[in-house]
C-alpha cells in the first residue's frame, strides 16, 4: 500500500519524538504545568499533546482521502466545492401564522439568503389542527401554523416555487405538508419536475431524540418510505428525506453517537426501500442528511469528513450502488442550539460563528446559523439578520471558501477523522447485531445511550470539567442591557384565534362530498397497505386539514406512547 511518508523519515522522526518527550517536554512541564491532566474532545475522545506523521503511519492517502468529487469523498462531494458555489444559506424560519412567516421569508430573501427553510409550530409538528384542545396556547410559537393548503399558499405569496428550494422540518405529517407544497406549486403553474426542496421525514430519530412522533415505529417508517417512493417518481428534484443527526446531538449525544446513529438510520431506510423492490441507484441520490455543528471545533470538522467517507463506503460496499451520486453524503448543518446560553446572550453570536466555520471547513452543502436570542424565543429580525451576516462574512471575507478542504493533511484532523470513524463503526456493528436501527429503537438502545451521554455531560459541567463561559466560568451579574435582549414580540393569542377561525372556515366552505370521499379513500388505502401519498395529495386538494388526514391515519396505524424512562 502506498504511504505518504517514507520509512526512513518516519524512523528518524520516531527517534526525535522519543527524545523530545523524554527530555524536552519534562523540562517545560517543570516550569509550566499543563492546564489539565487530561484533555478530551466534547465527546470524551482523549486529545494528545502533539500530533505528527507518526499518528498517520499507515495512512493511505488515496484510500482515506482521495480527491474531492471522487471516492471516498472525504475531501468533499464536488471537485471544486465553494470555489464554484458557496453553500446554500438556509435560515430556519417561521412563527405566528402564514402571513407573518411570508413577511419573514421575504425579509431574508431580500438580505441574501439563498434557500428557504420552514419551522413549524408544535401543533403542526405533531399533526393536529389549531382548534384541537391539545394545541391550546401553542399555535404559532416555535414556528408557523399550517393546518391547510390555504395556509401554505399564503406562506408563499409573491414567492415562485419554481425559483426557490424549501426545506420543511416535518416528520410524521411530512406527506401532508409535502402535499400542501406540491398543490401550491401546481396552482402557481410550476411543474412537478421543477419543485425543489426537502422534507425531513426521518421517523427513527423521532423516537431517539426529537419526540414529535405520532405513529408507532413500524407504521412511522412505512409512511416515510411511502413518501420517498412517491417523490422519487413524481418530484425528481425533491429530497424526500433528511436523515438527521441534529436532534440526536441536541438531545445530548456525543459527536460519535450522532454520526453512528444517523448512518444507522440511513442504513435502515436503504434496506426498507430495497425491500420494496427499488433499485438502490434510483433513490440513493435523493437521500440527504442533516448534522449539528457543536462548539468543539476540530471534532466537528472531523465528524463531517468521516461521515462522507463512511456513507460512501456503506453505499458502495454494502449496497452495491454504482452511480457516483448514490455515494454522496450531501448534508445540511445547523449550529448547535444547545451550545447557546441564556447568560450573557450576546456571546452566542461568537459561538455560532465558530460553529458555522466548522461546518464550512467540514464541507456542508447548506447551513443555518442560530439567532443569539434563541435560548429565549424564536429569533427577532435583528438576531436572524446577524446570523445570516455571519455566514456571509465567512463566505466572502475570510477566504476559507477559496480552496477545497483546507484542513486535510493536518496530523490532528486526519487522526481525529479516523478515530471518530473507528468509534462510529463500533456503534454501527452493535446496532447491526441487534437487527438494525428499527429493532434497536424498539429496544430503546439509542434512547438510553443519548440519555446517559446527556447526563454525563451535565455532571462534567457541574464538576467544572467542562467550561461554559458565563455559566460556570467568567460568570457575572448582568446589567439590564445584556439581560433584557429585545425579543420578537407578536400577538400569539390573536394569531391563535385567527388560525382557529380560518381552519373552521376552510372546513365549512369545502365541497363536503369530495372531502368525505377523499378521506374514505385514504383510509382504505392505508388499510390495504398501499402507498398513502397520492391519497393524501387528493385529500389536501379537497381541503382536508392536517388534523383530519393525520387523524384518519392514526385510526389505522395507532399512536405511539413512550415509556417515561430517564
Amino acid at each position, binding site marked *: 500500500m502506498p504511504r505518504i511518508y517514507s520509512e526512513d523519515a518516519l524512523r528518524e522522526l520516531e527517534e526525535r519524538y522519543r527524545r523530545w518527550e523524554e527530555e524536552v517536554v519534562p523540562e517545560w512541564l517543570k516550569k509550566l504545568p499543563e492546564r489539565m491532566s487530561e484533555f478530551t474532545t466534547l465527546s470524551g475522545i482523549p486529545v494528545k499533546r502533539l500530533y505528527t506523521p507518526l499518528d498517520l503511519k499507515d495512512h493511505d492517502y488515496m484510500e482515506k482521502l482521495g480527491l474531492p468529487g471522487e471516492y471516498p469523498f472525504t475531501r468533499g462531494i464536488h471537485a471544486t466545492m465553494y470555489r464554484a458555489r458557496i453553500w446554500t444559506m438556509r435560515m430556519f424560519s417561521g412563527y405566528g401564522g402564514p402571513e407573518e412567516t411570508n413577511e419573514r421569508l421575504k425579509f431574508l430573501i431580500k438580505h441574501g439568503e439563498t434557500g428557504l427553510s420552514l419551522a413549524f409550530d*408544535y*401543533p403542526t409538528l*405533531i399533526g393536529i389542527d389549531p382548534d384541537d384542545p*391539545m*394545541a*391550546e*396556547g*401553542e399555535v404559532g*410559537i*416555535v414556528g408557523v401554523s399550517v393546518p391547510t393548503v390555504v395556509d401554505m399558499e399564503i406562506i408563499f405569496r409573491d414567492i415562485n416555487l419554481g425559483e426557490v428550494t424549501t426545506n420543511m422540518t416535518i416528520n410524521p405529517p411530512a406527506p401532508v405538508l409535502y402535499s400542501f407544497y406540491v398543490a401550491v406549486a401546481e396552482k402557481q403553474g410550476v411543474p412537478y419536475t421543477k419543485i425543489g426542496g426537502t422534507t425531513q421525514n426521518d421517523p427513527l430519530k423521532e423516537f431517539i431524540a*426529537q*419526540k*414529535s*412522533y405520532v405513529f408507532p415505529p413500524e407504521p412511522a417508517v412505512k409512511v416515510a418510505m411511502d413518501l420517498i417512493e412517491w417523490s422519487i417518481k413524481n418530484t425528481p428534484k425533491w429530497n424526500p428525506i433528511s436523515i438527521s443527526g441534529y436532534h440526536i446531538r*441536541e*438531545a*445530548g449525544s456525543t459527536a460519535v453517537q450522532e454520526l453512528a446513529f444517523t448512518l444507522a438510520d440511513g442504513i435502515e431506510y436503504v434496506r426498507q426501500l430495497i425491500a420494496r423492490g427499488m433499485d438502490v441507484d434510483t433513490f440513493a441520490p435523493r437521500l440527504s442528511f442533516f448534522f449539528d455543528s457543536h462548539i468543539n471545533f476540530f471534532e466537528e470538522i472531523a465528524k463531517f469528513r468521516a461521515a462522507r467517507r463512511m456513507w460512501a463506503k456503506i453505499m458502495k460496499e454494502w449496497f452495491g450502488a454504482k452511480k457516483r451520486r448514490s455515494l454522496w453524503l450531501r448534508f445540511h448543518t445547523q449550529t448547535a442550539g*444547545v451550545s*447557546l*446560553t*441564556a*447568560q450573557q446572550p450576546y456571546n452566542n453570536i461568537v459561538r455560532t460563528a465558530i460553529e458555522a466555520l466548522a461546518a464550512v471547513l467540514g464541507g456542508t452543502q447548506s447551513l443555518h446559523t442560530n439567532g443569539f436570542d*434563541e*435560548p*429565549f*424565543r*424564536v429569533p427577532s429580525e435583528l438576531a436572524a439578520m446577524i446570523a445570516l451576516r455571519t455566514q456571509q462574512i465567512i463566505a466572502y471575507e475570510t477566504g476559507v471558501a477559496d480552496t477545497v478542504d483546507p484542513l486535510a493533511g493536518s496530523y490532528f484532523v486526519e487522526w481525529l477523522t479516523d478515530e471518530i470513524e473507528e468509534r462510529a463503526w463500533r456503534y454501527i456493528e452493535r446496532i447491526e447485531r441487534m437487527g438494525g436501527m428499527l429493532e434497536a429503537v424498539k429496544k430503546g438502545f439509542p434512547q438510553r445511550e443519548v*440519555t446517559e451521554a*446527556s*447526563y454525563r455531560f*451535565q*455532571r462534567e*459541567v*457541574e464538576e467544572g470539567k467542562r467550561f*461554559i463561559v*458565563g*455559566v*460556570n466560568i467568567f460568570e457575572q451579574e448582568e446589567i439590564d442591557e445584556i*439581560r*433584557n435582549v429585545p*425579543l420578537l414580540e407578536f400577538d400569539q393569542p390573536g394569531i391563535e384565534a385567527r388560525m382557529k377561525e380560518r381552519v373552521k372556515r376552510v372546513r365549512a366552505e369545502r365541497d363536503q362530498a369530495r372531502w368525505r370521499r377523499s378521506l374514505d379513500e385514504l383510509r382504505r388505502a392505508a388499510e390495504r397497505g398501499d402507498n398513502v401519498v397520492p391519497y393524501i395529495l387528493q385529500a389536501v386538494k379537497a381541503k382536508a386539514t392536517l388534523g383530519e388526514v393525520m387523524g384518519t391515519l392514526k385510526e389505522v396505524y395507532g399512536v405511539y*406512547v*413512550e*415509556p*417515561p424512562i*430517564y
Partner: protein
Amino acid sequence: MSSPQSTRRIKVLVAKLGIDGHDRGAKVIARALKDAGFEVVYTGIRQSPEQVALAAIQEDVDVIGVSILSGAHMHHMEKLMEKLREYGAEDIPVVLGGTIPIPDIEPLKRMGIREVFLPGTSLRYIIEVVRRLAEEKRAREAETLL
C-alpha cells in the same frame, strides 16, 4: 412510628407540560434529583395541566417541577395553577424550567410559581431549591397536624 414526615423521602414530580418534545432537561433533572436521594416520578412528554395536577395528587408529591421549551409556558402554567387550586392542591410548590424569556419571570411568580430556572442553572442549585420547598411544605403540614 415517630415522625413519618421527616423520614419519608422527598418525592418530586417531573412533568413535561404541553406538546413539545424537548425532554433532555427534564430527564437530566429527574436523574439528578434521584441521585440526590429524592423519589422521582417522571410523567413523560405531552401532558396536559389536568394530567399533571392529577399525577401530583395521586403520587402525593412534595414538589412539582415542570419543564417547558415551547414558549407556551404562560398559558400552560396558568392552567396548571388553576387545576391545582380546583383540586385543593395549591399547597404543592411548583417550579419551572426551560426557555423562559426574562420578562416572563415576574408574571410567572405572581401566578404562584416558586422558582423559574433558566438554561444553564446548576443541578446543585435546583436540588437545593427543591429540598427547601419540600421541607417547608412538610413543616406546614406538621404544624396543621398539631
